[in-house]
């Protein structure tokens, strides 16, 4: 009887070993993966980005005029007229500034520009969307030439789909029409 129990125990043990080994190995892999994972970033708090964007939107709203704010709120970009007549820019968050001719709708260039904060621990993360738009707006309206000189210029279509820009220009025209008819 005791021999039978011993034999059964040995069989059970032999069957359990691969399973235990597999579990141990899986746990080791999991620990190694967790060790490789970078430390939780600045955005450990899930609401932080949302609050940052909320603050940035309020700041943007307080700087631009009513038309530009409404444009951003409704369409997601701001049109800024250039210092040269017949020349304008579309400012998108975290995308190149697109230059175009308002009369013809012809797309001219993409100006790739970013605002990296290289100080301290925040290097590597980026501005909230609305801060990026405001930085471009301030740099364009404050010193258009310097911004254009600083940016990398490309033909349309490198980063922003020209079809999307044309749709946005059409949406902008519709939006302006509906605003002016609402006023009259």
């Amino acid at each position: 009887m005791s021999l039978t129990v011993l034999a059964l125990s040995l069989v059970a043990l032999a069957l359990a070993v691969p399973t235990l080994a597999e579990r141990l190995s899986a746990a080791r892999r999991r620990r190694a993966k967790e060790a490789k994972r970078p430390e939780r970033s600045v955005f450990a708090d899930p609401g932080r980005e949302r609050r940052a964007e909320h603050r940035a939107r309020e700041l943007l709203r307080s700087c631009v005029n009513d038309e530009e704010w409404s444009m951003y709120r409704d369409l997601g970009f701001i049109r800024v007229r250039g210092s040269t007549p017949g020349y304008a820019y579309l400012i998108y968050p975290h995308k190149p500034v697109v230059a175009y001719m308002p009369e013809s709708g012809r797309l001219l260039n993409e100006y790739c520009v970013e605002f990296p904060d290289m100080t301290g621990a925040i290097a590597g993360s980026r501005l909230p969307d609305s801060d990026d738009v405001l930085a471009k707006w301030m740099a364009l309206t404050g010193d258009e030439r310097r911004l254009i000189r600083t940016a990398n210029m490309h033909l349309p279509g490198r980063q922003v789909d020209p079809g999307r820009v044309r749709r946005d220009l059409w949406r902008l025209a519709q939006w302006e029409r509906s605003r002016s008819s609402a006023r009259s």
Partner: protein
Amino acid sequence: MKFLRMRPGHGEVLLTEGDPDVREDEERLVEEFRRQLDEGMWAAVPTHAPGSGRRQAVMIHEYGEIPSGADRVIFFPRASGG
């Protein structure tokens, strides 16, 4: 007058504030202004374009260029080609 700075992942933060007509405040503002530019920030004051509803920014390169009556200066990271 307030000095605000855009912070990645945070939105703007208040760096300092003070009355430029009060000497102690002004010294603090000048010092902070220089520190921000040394850290590679650009500074701008949002304003109204004269004679229109248009708004624009004035880029500020040194403390003395801040328009009188400006209620805030916004510091933001220097642009670079993306």
